[in-house]
């Protein structure tokens, strides 16, 4: 277990700045997620921590030690790749033991650790199988086990769930969270899936264009997004954005107003301070239903209570309490 510090980390590939002067403190035992759209630099950051990329500038510290010049093995990290990268010609057992073998661990230690991983990850009975004889979820667990048997101080996970089908992804998400509770290793997790980031992490760092826009707990980022991009990226369906001049309650007409679908109340009768629109389609999810409302050129999503029924193609009035408004500067995108 260890804390990880990134200090002014920059990575440039020729003319492209993949990671742009980011600083981040990750606490001991923390589950931190780097989340952002593809190409935002999250994977490059992770690879830099792993030792697969040389930073152009800045330092990476693990447990207070600067690890920039160290190869991965000496950083006490393990990494799970998106593709799992299981060695296809080796059995589950050999895959799990690969790193231990390199570290020249005793036979006893090796078999104990492999056994531990197999039990921890529910892979009993599959020891002799080849990766191609495993299901996607099992492969994923082998990859995780191969990383865990090395008892890393920091576990790096690069989109480990994105190759699984939707149902399995949800299950592995829970398993991963339980696993973290059990082993308490510092985890740096990379994903583009905001739901994964929200559900798994102690804290998350939202990245865009090589920069970290906001770091915080899922609640903080959801409730107080620091930036219009974070506001739109975290949450599903995404936050609605309306120009300030169209919202009667807002004084700053130059601001962009963000309102989450669940903070809007809807009425078929004219409401004070309400914005009028036309109900369009309803998406039924079971527990939640979302109604989409046309407001001239905008499509606004509104969460309906299960018992609430709004007919389609009718004039409706939308209103949100003022404290639920998120105001952003139109030019900088920062929260005001």
């Amino acid at each position: 277990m260890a804390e990880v510090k990134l200090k002014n980390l920059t990575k440039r590939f020729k003319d492209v700045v993949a990671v742009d002067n980011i600083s981040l403190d990750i606490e001991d035992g923390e589950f931190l997620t780097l989340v952002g759209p593809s190409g935002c630099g999250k994977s490059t950051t992770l690879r830099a921590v792993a030792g697969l990329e040389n930073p152009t500038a800045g330092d990476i510290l693990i447990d207070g030690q600067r690890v920039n010049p160290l190869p991965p093995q000496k950083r006490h990290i393990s990494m799970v790749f998106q593709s799992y990268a299981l060695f296809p010609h080796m059995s589950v057992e050999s895959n799990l033991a690969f790193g231990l073998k390199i570290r020249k661990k005793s036979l006893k230690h090796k078999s104990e650790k492999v056994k531990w991983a197999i039990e921890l990850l529910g892979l009993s009975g599959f020891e002799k199988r080849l990766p191609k004889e495993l299901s996607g979820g099992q492969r994923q667990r082998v990859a995780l086990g191969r990383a865990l048997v090395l008892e890393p101080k920091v576990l790096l996970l690069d989109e480990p769930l994105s190759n699984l089908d939707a149902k399995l992804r949800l299950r592995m998400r829970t398993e991963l969270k339980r696993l973290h509770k059990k082993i308490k290793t510092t985890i740096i997790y990379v994903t583009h899936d905001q739901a994964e980031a929200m559900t798994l992490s102690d804290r998350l760092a939202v990245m865009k264009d090589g920069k970290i826009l906001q770091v915080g707990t899922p609640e903080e980022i959801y409730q107080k997004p620091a930036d219009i991009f974070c506001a739109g990226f975290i949450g599903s369906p995404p936050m609605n954005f309306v120009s300030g001049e169209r919202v009667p309650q807002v004084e700053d007409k130059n601001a962009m107003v963000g309102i989450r679908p669940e903070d809007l109340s809807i009425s078929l009768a004219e409401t004070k301070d309400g914005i009028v629109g036309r109900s369009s389609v309803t998406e039924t999810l079971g527990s939640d239903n979302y109604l989409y409302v046309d407001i001239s050129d905008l499509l606004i999503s509104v969460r309906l209570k299960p018992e609430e029924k709004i007919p389609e193609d009718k004039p409706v009035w939308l209103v949100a309490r003022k404290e639920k408004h998120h105001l952003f500067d139109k030019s900088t995108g920062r929260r005001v």
Partner: protein
Amino acid sequence: MKILKFVLIGVILFFIIFPLFMMTKYSISDRESIVTGGEYPEPFFPFKPTLEMFGVLWSRSDFMKAGLTSLWVGLFAVAFSLLLGAPTAYALARFRIPGVAILLFFLLSVRLFPDISAVIPVAELLLSRPFSLLPPVVLVGLAHTLLALPYTVYIAKGVFESIPRDLEEQAFVLGAAKSRTFFKILTPLALPGLGAAAIYTFFLSWNEFIFAYFLTFQGTETTLPVYLLRILSWSPQKNFISAISLLICVPVIIFTFLVQRYMREGLTAGAVK
């Protein structure tokens, strides 16, 4: 349409199978079936099939020696072209090399020249010191390496490109040194593909005539195709020469069956979803 298809397949099969049939037929013919003196037509199938010629060949040391020479030349060619070609291919597949497309074109363009135009300079080089000190088997092996190398590089490049880079990076993260990654991860995964390159090289060498002829015509050590020519110059009987031809084909057929299954295994399945 269907009939036409079958007729077409029949015609194609005829062209493939008929020469093989004739070769086999002559090789097991008795004397009366081939030496007719124009008194009666040659029979479609020999009167008294016999394996006599194979027995004759088995006891001929020059034939056995040529066979062994061919085998060794083939193995040398395979070894040389893999030793040189696989690392080259790996480098071409993994590292960003400026002008790699031009390089690859030149590599293949070597084979655009007819062999006959390359054979004189190559023979000139290999038959003078220091190369001439090497045994002829190695010399011909080297010449065949020259012929096979462009293809070996091409095939092996494809093989290495098909192995996900993630596997190497994963091995690196787990602490494996480059050499371990190469021998424990890459080599086992590349083997089926490299096997294909090896088979290709071996067959090329086994069949190759021009270079083998120019490099060995003076000596006693020759490969089978050159041996076949020498025998032909004595105007031997059809059954004798056919038996030699048939025996030259046999290893090719056996080898193909042996290694093809291995090639098809597709070891990389399951590495990356």
